[in-house]
């Protein structure tokens, strides 16, 4: 009986936007953590001079790598906004602006992701 109640509550919890905000925050954090060592490794190439770093930067100009790069920046924006949401929930006094907060979070992530796509685009040269 208790298992049934638990499952029903689990389903109800999973249909709530806050659950998806939680999952998104966790997964984006996990992916960013996995990316960090690669990022540090690339930057360490600078020790071998600008040419070594340039060869890596040129490699990142391939469309697929560009897409991964864009995804990482989007993940960073998602994790940042999700984190600010958490800090606001835990540290700021309660407000009746929950839906506005969600809209602001989604809007801010879109702004950063689209902005970066625009900055990457050849038109900006």
């Amino acid at each position, binding site marked *: 009986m208790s298992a049934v109640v638990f499952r029903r509550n689990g389903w109800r919890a999973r249909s709530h936007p806050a659950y998806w905000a939680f999952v998104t925050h966790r997964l984006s954090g996990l992916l960013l*953590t996995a990316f960090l*060592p690669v990022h540090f490794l690339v930057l360490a190439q*600078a020790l071998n001079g600008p040419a070594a770093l340039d060869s890596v930067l040129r490699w990142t100009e391939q469309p697929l790598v560009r897409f991964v790069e864009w995804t990482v920046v989007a993940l960073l924006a998602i*994790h940042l906004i999700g984190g600010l949401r958490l800090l606001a929930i*835990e540290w700021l006094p309660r407000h009746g602006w929950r839906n506005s907060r969600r809209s602001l979070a989604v809007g801010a992530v879109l702004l950063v992701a689209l*902005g*970066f796509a625009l900055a990457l685009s050849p038109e900006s040269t």
Partner: protein
Amino acid sequence: MTEARRQTLLWLAQRASAAVLAVCVTAHLATIFYVAREHLGAAEILDRTRGSWMLAMFYAVFVVAAAVHAPLGVRAICEEWLGWRGRPLDRATLVAAALLLAPGLGAVWAVFA
């Protein structure tokens, strides 16, 4: 130290590092936009970073905050989703922090020196 106190300290470290990272990530995103928009090459990037104590200090703080924040986040995932607990998890968290801190500070040095 009681378990409750330990958990509280870990939570506080996670949130304090998050607050530092909020500032660092915002500045980093702005830098990423600038580099992408200006299509800066390695030489131009290194021209701006080499010998800049301000940038080196900023990125050192960024790396330290990330080395505290990320392992604690992964630790929470291991505890809640995989059921890992106890000393092995404590050790793995410390190792993860060291594995981010050392190459992270190394990368800061690489673009500064």
